């Protein structure tokens, strides 16, 4: 069974996204450890890409800062090796198709397995293109994480049926919705998902309070904090790990 399931055995899960190398890899390592110590159930490590088209300016700026500081795919693998000396919670990569492809997909996915990466999220690899990496992910026992959005109507069944690891539910974007509207559409989406799979589902949403995070978590199996943590890192630089830990503690307590 996928190790990723472990992230969903401690109440509702709290997943944290961090961009590797923003502002430097030492800070990211400290932030990962702070998040893990304060209850994060899974960490998504972003490998920076120059042109992250699926994300907004905050994430792009984080990526560009990391690249400017000399972060490369090779250095990220070394970084994960070092993290794995004591960090035991599931770790997944989030990066763009070209980062995997240019490294050599097999070389990349084999290195994921070897360094202890449990899953791979590729935002510009939709269901229709997943065979680009899926056979290699199977070969090296790395879960290729699928995603659905609140605008995926009609596509949810096929995606849910074949989802592995956990299902990434993107509740941001796709038009302006109030928090209440988001919750309504999310609940409908989750209902469809549940008809096709019992895989854990985690929701990325830019909630504005621990209470909102709790409500969102209540509709699924966990929440993903992404831009909030990137904002923290952007504002505080190398002082960020302590704040990341505090943020995770408060929100994990709220959702669990």
């Amino acid at each position: 069974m996928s190790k990723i399931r472990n992230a969903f055995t401690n109440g509702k899960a709290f997943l944290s996204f961090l961009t590797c190398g923003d502002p430097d890899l030492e800070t990211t390592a400290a932030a990962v450890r702070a998040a893990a110590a304060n209850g994060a159930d899974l960490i998504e490590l972003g490998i920076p890409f120059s042109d992250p088209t699926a994300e907004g300016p905050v994430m792009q700026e984080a990526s560009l800062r990391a690249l400017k500081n000399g972060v490369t795919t090779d250095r990220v693998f070394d970084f994960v090796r070092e993290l794995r000396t004591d960090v035991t919670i599931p770790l997944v990569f989030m990066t763009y198709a070209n980062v995997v492809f240019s490294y050599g997909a097999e070389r990349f996915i084999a290195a994921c397995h070897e360094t202890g990466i449990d899953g791979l999220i590729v935002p510009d690899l939709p269901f229709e293109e997943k065979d680009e990496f899926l056979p290699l992910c199977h070969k090296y026992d790395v879960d290729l994480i699928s995603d659905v959005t609140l605008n995926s109507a009609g596509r949810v069944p096929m995606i849910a049926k074949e989802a592995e690891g956990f299902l990434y539910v993107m509740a941001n974007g796709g038009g302006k919705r109030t928090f209440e509207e988001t919750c309504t559409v999310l609940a409908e989406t989750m209902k469809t998902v549940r008809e096709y799979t019992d895989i854990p589902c985690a929701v990325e949403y830019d909630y504005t309070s621990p209470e909102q995070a709790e409500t969102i978590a209540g509709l699924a199996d966990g929440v993903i904090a992404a831009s909030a943590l990137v904002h923290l890192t952007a504002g505080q630089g190398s002082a960020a790990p302590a704040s990341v830990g505090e943020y995770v503690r408060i929100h994990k307590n709220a959702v669990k």
Partner: protein
Amino acid sequence: MTNENGRFGIHGGQYVPEILMNAVNELEEAYNHFKNDPDFNAELNTLLNEYAGRPSRLYYAEKMTKDLGGAKIYLKREDLNHTGAHKINNVLGQALLAKKMGKTRLIAETGAGQHGVASATAAALMGMECVVFMGEEDTIRQALNVYRMRLMGATVVPVTSGTATLKDAVSEAMREWTNRIEDTHYCLGSVMGPHPFPTIVRDFQAVISKEIKQQILEKEGRLPDAVLACVGGGSNAIGAFYHFIEDEGVRLIGCEAAGRGIDTFETAATVNTGKLGIFHGMKSYFCQDEYGQIAPVYSISAGLDYPGVGPEHAYLHDIGRAEYVPVTDEEAVCAFEYLAKTEGIIPAIESAHAVAHAMKLAPTMGKDQIIVINLSGRGDKDCAAIARYRGEDIHE
């Protein structure tokens, strides 16, 4: 030429975020419905002929031919279209399609501003809202086009992320589409991006080669020996090549922007210097570093300043059907000045890349041979920048 999954050989595909999949599928379905619809095509043809001024002339450049002393040179005058470039062909098609789909808002990216101007034009004509994303650096290089877009009621959004050029404008337009799909059509300007865009844009631009073929057969009673066009994303080139792909005897030559040279980092010659990758929705060739980070490319021409190339060009390169040659800034500027002085035609600096290669190629060919250069746009927009390149500080 497109196969079922929107592939050209190994290239193409739909590498976009899940959130855009319903939008690209909806577009594909609509396009498949309307592309063979007689009413749609009649309406589009009326727009192309009565509004955009098609067919464009195939002009025999006699002075240039005599001066170069080799192959006979014809210029396909896309610069004479309404709005001054080939971009209008695609935009009228997509805007009409968007309207049939019930969309009320067009968004577009632009480099040199020609596609943005064409989009603003079509939106004004069809009563649609228009928002154009343009790299901040390009809004400075092409200030006149920014004004033209605004004059026609479009909103121009300067893009400051990344390198603030065409690739960032594409990324920003994609993001905006993600946020507002219901009423918005993304009017992509080149034969790039996720399927079905490379096929839709190609089909709407193919009118260029369809006309060239008829016109050259009327004038010369034979097909040309070579067709030349500049290539950024590659829309005017694929338009000029398409109906000749089946004619093996016609050389198809794409002229890439080499910037300061393909042995420097300041280049945008993708086929010549790039490698296979996945970006902006497609698998194709891209200028990138060893870790797949997209390179900050450079060309004097804002319209060719793009780190990728359309997937059908990548495929034509793979199978050896088309050749892709680099042309430097300096060569393009010389050709810009040459065509102005020799024929009284000021080409767009993009198109001047094709003229430059023709100047090298024509003298090596026989007088009984024929070259067609696709003059994709006119150069008024470039005059101030070229003057500055030559050390003259003029202001519009």
